[in-house]
């Protein structure tokens, strides 16, 4: 009996850790935009959800596998991100603190409504043949979708860190994040670099959207909970480091699955939200921040 509970608990923990990868993936784009432009993109959740619905459309209308649809989805979201920063956000920068926030808020409302018109308020899911598969590992059942989430998160994070560290554009983004004026003096067009940073953030959002859709059902209102998860990860993990983001994701993932384990599935998100508020109250610089 006790060993069965222990096994269940181990299972829950493992699921939480795997889910944490997905959460880190959700937060990656938010963290990048914040790090570079000092702006929190409140439309991030809805843009991720846009990626999810994009894959849903590709799957239901064209019969393309959601993961395969990323070949189109990533460039589309990249372009949308570039456009948003270049033509909307950039005009509001430096004007006031609330201007970019309110613009992002407006975009988020528009996307929410658009998705509701296009896809009805009904709950949808990216139900593929493998989404519900699971396999057993020494008595522990692991859903394949969770393992895919984790693998995708690791792949995207490695790619992103290589991109930021090795390519010219990546170094330019890092430079603009560290010191805008100095970057400009080195001949970097920061306006363009910002647009690319936003675009890269949206490319990660496309990945996050697809793997979220494979893991959970979603509605046009889900964007806000994605945003809170992303924000929670950034808060818990502390800003600026990819390792922090990864650990933050793990903490939230484990919190959610443990919450579901002890309090039932309806209140599992509640545990995450309270954790975020608790961390804000006790350690606003993040658990792993300095």
């Amino acid at each position, binding site marked *: 009996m006790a060993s069965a509970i222990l096994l269940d608990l181990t299972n829950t923990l493992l699921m939480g850790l795997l889910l944490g990868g997905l959460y880190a993936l959700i937060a990656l784009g938010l963290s990048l935009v914040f790090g570079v432009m*000092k*702006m*929190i993109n*409140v439309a991030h959740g809805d843009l991720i959800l846009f990626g999810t619905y994009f894959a849903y459309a590709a799957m239901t209308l064209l019969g393309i596998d959601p993961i395969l649809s990323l070949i189109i989805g990533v460039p589309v979201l990249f372009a949308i991100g570039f456009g948003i920063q270049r033509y*909307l956000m950039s*005009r*509001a920068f430096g*004007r*006031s*603190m*609330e*201007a970019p*926030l*309110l*613009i992002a*808020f*407006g*975009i*988020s*409302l*528009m996307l*929410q*409504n*658009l998705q*509701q*018109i296009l896809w009805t308020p009904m709950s949808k899911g990216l139900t593929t043949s493998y989404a519900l598969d699971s396999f057993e590992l020494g008595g522990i059942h692991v859903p394949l979708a969770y393992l895919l989430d984790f693998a995708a998160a690791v792949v995207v994070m490695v790619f992103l860190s290589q991109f930021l560290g090795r390519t010219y554009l990546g170094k330019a983004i890092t430079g603009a994040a560290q010191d805008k004026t100095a970057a400009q003096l080195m001949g970097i067009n920061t306006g363009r670099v910002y647009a690319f940073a936003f675009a890269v953030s949206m490319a990660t959002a496309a990945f996050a959207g697809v793997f979220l859709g494979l893991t959970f059902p979603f509605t046009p209102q889900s964007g*806000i*909970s994605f*945003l*809170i998860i992303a*924000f*929670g990860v950034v808060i818990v993990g502390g800003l600026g480091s990819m390792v922090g983001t990864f650990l933050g994701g793990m903490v939230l993932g484990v919190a959610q699955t443990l919450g579901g384990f002890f309090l039932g599935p*309806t*209140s599992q*998100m*509640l545990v995450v*939200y*309270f954790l*975020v*508020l*608790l961390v*804000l*109250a006790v350690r*606003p610089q993040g658990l792993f921040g300095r």
Partner: protein
Amino acid sequence: MIKRLASFTVAIVFLAALPKLGLPQEWILYALLFFVYLAMANMWNLLCGYSGLISLCQPAFVGIAGYTLVILVWIGVPFHVAIAAGGIIAGLFAVVISIPVFRLRGIYFAIGTLVVPEALRILFLLWRPVGGKLHGGGAGYMLRGMGAVSVGHYYWIACAVGIGSFFLIRLILRSKLGLGLAAIRDNDRSAASSGLNVFRLKLYSFVIAGFVTGIAGAVFYLYQGYVEPGGAFSIQWTMIPILATVIGGIGTEAGPIIGTVVVVFLDFLLARYAGFSMLIQGAILVGIMLLAPQGIVEIGRQVRDYRFGSK
């Protein structure tokens, strides 16, 4: 001064007499909504325009006050008292929630406050405060035994709250609190070094906003007669005051009034296209922020300057 007072009095008497003029009931309801939204917009203006707090947790105040109203009326408290209680509970909630969110600054504060209504929405979906048989065992509640009260009565309450919120803002801006807030907004470091308690002043304005937004929310649910978590903690309670304030002009006294007129008129126009209303309102918000970030008040000022020459 006398002239101004007289015009205020005439306006108030006219607005109070509205239900007696034999207008269609629908108009009275839009006027009621106007005052509810006006109170919310004034409070958001106090937070964002004068205190530098971008609060996205307005739905929490509305929802908590709405639930307080319905639950208290259910256990037999007169509804006037229940409205006030709704405001007080919302104000107290603002104090509680300030513990985590006031550790955050600027944009962090905005997202921190965004978490609150979402958490409450789930909490109220799970919580069944008064008996299960009230409304099909769900999380929604009907307001009990309000059949005898006329729409005109609701309207007067809303009218009092809306106009009251306007005078409250005037009072605050001319008081020590308002001057302190202005000093903080202009330069928080120099304000702090001249001995202002920045934290406390912002907390005061947050709690006042929570209280008045709560009252307005309670009045809305008095009119609606039904409260459920999805609507009570809906993002629209953030969107409406933001839209009204931004359209009218953030940080101006007239802004929220003009903006609320536009928002209610939009409500009226878009009633037939309810499915698209958020899309259109979102587009208006983005458009205003890009083209006229200071809102209609500033456009009016520019037009006046252009016509009469500016110095």
